């Protein structure tokens, strides 16, 4: 299925957009009629057998949206897999589009990677099976929903959603449209974390008491920018070079300042998901260890830290409790130097702690169980992406699937809301709401800037 679109030049973009008219400018994703329909090759016909929206042969056609630093690491792993053909890139930034095209074309020795300024164009391509989505945080949730509605599988960087509501909306859409979703919580495929989780789940720690998750950094909204703005630049950008309106996306309007795109946007509440910067990883492993990967704690209580009016800063704990009594502690201090994104699991008969160093520390009674691989650092991204590609074919959910990601994110957002309010909150996982706490419930969502929307919930939340 040859793609008819020609590579898009800067000059050609304006022309293409003008020709496409309202349909191209519309923010909604136009799902194709043909995408996902069942087809089989006729007599003498060669090529992939398409069932649903994925290729049953080793030819998974992948497109990318918003790929830069971390996304380039993911892209390299995809390009290294012979099952994958990377065919197009969409980015609101011309420089990023061209960087990805250059890397892909160099890898294949072709000039075939198609560039798009508008993500809706790559979502509408009928021949693409899956997407690598590595935009900035605020776009992850909407892009995941649109990819699902277009029938495309996705590997998507974390955090997966900017709010509790968006977390559920993402997972509901993935379930509704039956696509494969893998978030970039790659530590779920990292040996040291697997081992630690295994000790907890197998019962080797005895009765589980507490799981700890490293949050490392201060709470986002109280970082330097908070809810503030930077002043407007004198000149707005050329939208063909950098489309500020699309870059801003569903976030609240603010004056253009080129610094947001280059650095520092993570200091602003509108552009990040607070605790989830690390909790996307560490809460995922903690909930996996506790057998709670599809639910959330029912209580959240802040401890320590300094309340600045819009949240906690300094050294803090968020002490949480699951319905079965097991505790989850989110903390940004007192780790034993095992590396970033650390976890510690404690039971009645032992404990285990690990982090990105790959080293594993355990209680004395468990030392004989620690394998020799301990202490070796390795990048789990390859294994994580391999699992995703395998699941594209098997249609089984990978470890960081949408439901697990949703549960992780709801836990982390609830903890973040607790820290922003600096008081105890109580959560009902079944009702998806805080109990008797209107202010906390109002903080579950962030209204999208027009014209963006979530097509999400069939029932009340």
């Amino acid at each position, binding site marked *: 299925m040859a793609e008819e679109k020609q590579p898009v030049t800067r000059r050609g973009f304006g022309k293409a957009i003008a020709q496409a008219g*309202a*349909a191209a400018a*519309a*923010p*909604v994703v*136009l799902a194709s*009629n*043909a995408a*996902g329909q069942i087809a089989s090759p006729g007599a003498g016909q060669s090529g992939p057998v398409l069932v*649903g*929206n994925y290729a049953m042969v080793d030819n998974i056609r992948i497109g990318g949206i918003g790929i830069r630093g*971390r996304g380039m*690491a993911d892209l390299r792993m995809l390009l290294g897999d012979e099952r994958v053909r990377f065919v197009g890139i969409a980015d609101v930034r011309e420089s990023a589009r061209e960087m990805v095209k250059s890397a892909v074309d160099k890898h294949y020795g072709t000039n075939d990677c198609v560039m798009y300024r508008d993500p809706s164009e790559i979502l509408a391509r009928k021949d693409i099976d899956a997407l690598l989505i590595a935009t900035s945080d605020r776009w992850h949730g909407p892009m995941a929903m649109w990819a699902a*509605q*277009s*029938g495309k599988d996705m590997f998507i*960087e*974390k955090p997966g959603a900017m709010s509790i509501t968006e977390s559920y909306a993402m997972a509901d859409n993935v379930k*509704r*449209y039956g696509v494969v979703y893998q978030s*970039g919580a*790659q530590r779920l495929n990292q040996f040291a974390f697997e081992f630690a989780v295994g000790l907890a789940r197998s019962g080797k720690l005895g009765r589980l008491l507490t799981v700890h998750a490293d949050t*490392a*950094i201060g709470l986002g909204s109280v970082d*330097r920018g*908070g*809810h*503030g*703005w*930077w*002043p407007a630049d004198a000149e707005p950008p050329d939208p063909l070079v950098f489309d500020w309106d699309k870059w801003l996306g569903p976030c*609240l*309007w603010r004056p253009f300042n080129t610094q947001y795109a280059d*650095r520092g946007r993570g200091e602003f509440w509108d552009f990040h998901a607070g605790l989830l*910067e*690390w909790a*996307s990883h560490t809460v995922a492993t903690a909930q996996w260890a506790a057998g709670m990967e599809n639910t959330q704690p029912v209580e959240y209580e802040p401890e320590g830290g300094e309340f*600045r*009016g*819009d949240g906690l800063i300094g050294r803090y704990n968020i002490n949480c409790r699951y319905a079965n009594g097991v505790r989850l502690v989110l903390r940004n201090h007192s780790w034993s130097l095992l590396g*970033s*994104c650390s976890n510690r699991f404690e039971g009645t008969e032992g404990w285990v702690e690990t982090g990105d160093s790959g080293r594993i520390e355990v209680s004395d009674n468990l030392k004989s169980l620690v394998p020799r691989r301990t202490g070796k*650092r*390795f990048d789990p991204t390859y294994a994580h992406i391999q699992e995703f590609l395998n699941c594209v074919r098997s249609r089984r959910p990978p470890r960081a699937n949408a439901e697990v990601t949703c549960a992780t994110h709801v836990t982390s957002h609830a903890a973040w809301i607790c820290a922003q309010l600096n008081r105890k909150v109580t959560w009902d996982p079944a009702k998806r709401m805080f109990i008797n706490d209107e202010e906390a*419930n109002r903080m*579950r*969502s*962030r*209204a999208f*800037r*027009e*014209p963006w*929307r*979530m*097509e*999400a*919930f*069939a*029932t*009340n939340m």
Partner: protein
Amino acid sequence: MRQTPGQTPQPPAAPAAAAQGQPPAAAKPQRPPAPSVPPEFDALPIWTMEPAKLIAMVKDPKSTVFQKAIACKKLAFTGGKDAVQPMAALLDHPQLSCYARFGLEPNPDPMVDDVLRAALGKLTGKLQVGVINTIGVRKDAKAMPALAKLINSSDPEIAGAAAASIGQIGGLQAAKVLQGALGSTNPPVFPVVARASLLCAEGLMAANKARAIEFYTQLSGASMPGPVRLAALRVLNAESPAPPGAKAYPPPTGEAAENDRSGFLGRRQ
């Protein structure tokens, strides 16, 4: 210094190049720090205000766009009934409309629905789309008549937004409107109507399963967008096998079938 999540821990640096007889690599240039937020855009003093002061700030014509924006943002979490009208007055402001909706959308007071419905007919373009979207999020069934008209708008953004909101509001009336639209709308709105119908059918499952199955059956038709059709088929498959009389493949014929005694090829022995 801690690593950024997502980065892979790096092994210790290799021996210095100079020690191996090579010239040292050029030092990586340091990026200058991001600028500070200037005092006029510092939100914390506004963020810590009581609702009454925030409302006064929203109303005050001397307040800056920034002050009104942050006041609306905080009122999203703390504003009551008295915050509704002042924020509604900003729904036609090109920059502040999104802040007004941000402030209004989670407010449980029914007056919010009243002001949004009232604004529907006064706004155009993206600002109208925004209000339509918020009405959908709030599932305001009283807005159904107005939305049922807007689904036929010649502006595909408005028609699509109306369809999506009708799907989120759900119910039998929504199903009727959407089924009508499935037969009358064209691209680019048709796929949005189909997705909204899917959402509506899902919402009907608990209260009126027979009607939901009927809707899903319509959505499983060959004319539907592929992802919607497959989603509907998965629901139908989970509910029951195909009904009697549905199109089915005939029993196999030919030598292999004639010789088969297992029954696996469909021939009973």
